[in-house]
């Protein structure tokens, strides 16, 4: 029992050590939204400034967008539909405030999966009535290594499991064991 308790104490001690970097972090820090590029969109009677945290846009990047209609967002509501090359909408929800820029509508940690042409379609309603407008965007290739290579690396545990199961299966032949199909 003493040995078991010693082993337990050792494990807990090492766990504590391994967690030290996270425990030492005083508090998470969250970067403010920095808009590096702006496009103007006419949405019916409203002019909307679309702000981008990254420019040019790249596929799979975690992006920040802000949407600022003239006169502010307080007296307006709206929806944003996003699709690629006229395909099905990947997002079609009411506009909401950006969590780190509460005086603007926006999207945070949002990525566009796939290079090519994307369309943001805005529907707004406010004091001047309803309106619709579109913004066409070009999204460049994803940064980093080829995505196929990344997926192969991400799938390696599955390949390892498949290989291990194959080896164990060949050794044990569970289908031929007498007890396999017995109650």
């Amino acid at each position, binding site marked *: *029992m003493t040995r*078991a308790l010693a*082993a*337990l104490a*050792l*494990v807990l001690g*090492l*766990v504590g050590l*391994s*967690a030290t*970097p*996270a*425990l030492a*972090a005083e*508090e*998470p*820090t*969250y970067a403010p939204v920095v808009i590096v590029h702006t496009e103007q969109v006419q949405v019916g009677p409203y002019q909307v400034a679309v702000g981008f945290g990254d420019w040019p846009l790249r596929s*799979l*990047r*975690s*992006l920040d967008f802000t949407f600022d209609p003239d006169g502010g967002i307080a007296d307006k509501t709206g929806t944003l539909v996003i699709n690629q090359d006229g395909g099905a909408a990947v997002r079609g*929800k*009411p506009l*909401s*405030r950006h*969590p*780190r820029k*509460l005086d603007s509508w926006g999207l*945070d*940690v*949002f*990525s566009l*999966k796939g290079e090519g042409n994307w369309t943001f379609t805005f529907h707004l309603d406010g004091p001047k009535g309803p309106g619709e407008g579109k913004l066409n965007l070009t999204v460049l290739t*994803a*940064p*980093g290594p080829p*995505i196929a290579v*990344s*997926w192969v*690396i*991400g*799938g*390696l*545990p*599955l390949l*390892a*499991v498949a290989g291990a*199961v194959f080896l*164990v*299966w060949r050794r*044990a032949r*569970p*289908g031929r*064991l007498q*007890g*396999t*199909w*017995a*109650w």
Partner: protein
Amino acid sequence: MALTTQPPGTALRSWLPPAVLLLVSNLVSLVGLVWDVQWHADVGPDTFFTLPHLFIYTAPAISGLTSLVVVLRRTAATRAGAQDTGQVGGRSVAVLRGTFAAPVGYLIAGCGSAAFLLYGLWDLWWHTVYGFDAVIDSPPHVGLILCDQISMMGTLVAFAAARSHLLGKIGITLTVGVGFAWSCLFAAVAPRSVGPVGGMALTIAGLGVFALLLGLRLLRWPVGGALAPAAVLVVIKLASDPFGVWAARWYAAEVGLPLRDHAGSQGRLAALMPLLLIGSAVLVEATLLLARRFGGSPRWAVPLAGALGGVLLAMTSPPGSGLTTGLAGAVVGAVAAWLGWMAATLIDQSSTEEITA
């Protein structure tokens, strides 16, 4: 690698503490996952050093170090020529030409945990290139998810080696329930639909039936081998639903971040856990009981039970699924049931014959 047989007769105090530590690590991981998924949905901004991430990365540290200690102790005992009755986790596997003697359960859990931490490093690099967590289905995340499932399989093997003991059976029940609850995340990674077939629903159906048959076959109770893990899942669902929402809101308040405008009041991961796993378990157990009573063979009864359970899960899992998805669920359920039964057989083979307290 060469397999050596471990003699029976291992004491409770030797196998229980490390197996419980593995289970604790699985629970810690699940808590972190529930919290993190809710955080991304309701709050959003992320760094590496968040409390949910601390839970997620502490879990493999616990299971990895536990596995390391067990393997080193088993290796030392083997080298000292002691009869190997103290450590559990299944048969010992000679690793690196016999340099280490590793109980197979702890070998699996340790490899899964070590690989998890490596994928964690890759994920950290990934975020420097792509930014933080815009999607859950990124290559590093898929690697992390798979490694966590491997670790949980190691936990299951460790408890299965002690399944002749009641505490071993309880460990199997909890591990299958926790493991399936965790694996519901695959539904968020799966495509929402493939043509007329719901991808999320099929994922839940396949994983759910697999878990039910795995538990049923390992526990070998006359009744309740599928129902017990399903009941654990229901308890986890009911607990993680309010916990996820509360934890995300509490932590957001602590670090001074607002909630998203459309933050929901429902636990995101809990929403993927099927309450009707209980119903599926009833169908599976009833089918197998009837087959057994009337002299049927598991060869056809197991896939049939899985098909029935799969239809129920596929047609009731979100998003709303139609008849086509139900039919696909029958096929997926039949295959998953067969796989679950076979996986239990392989785990049986990897375990000791008998362990007594």
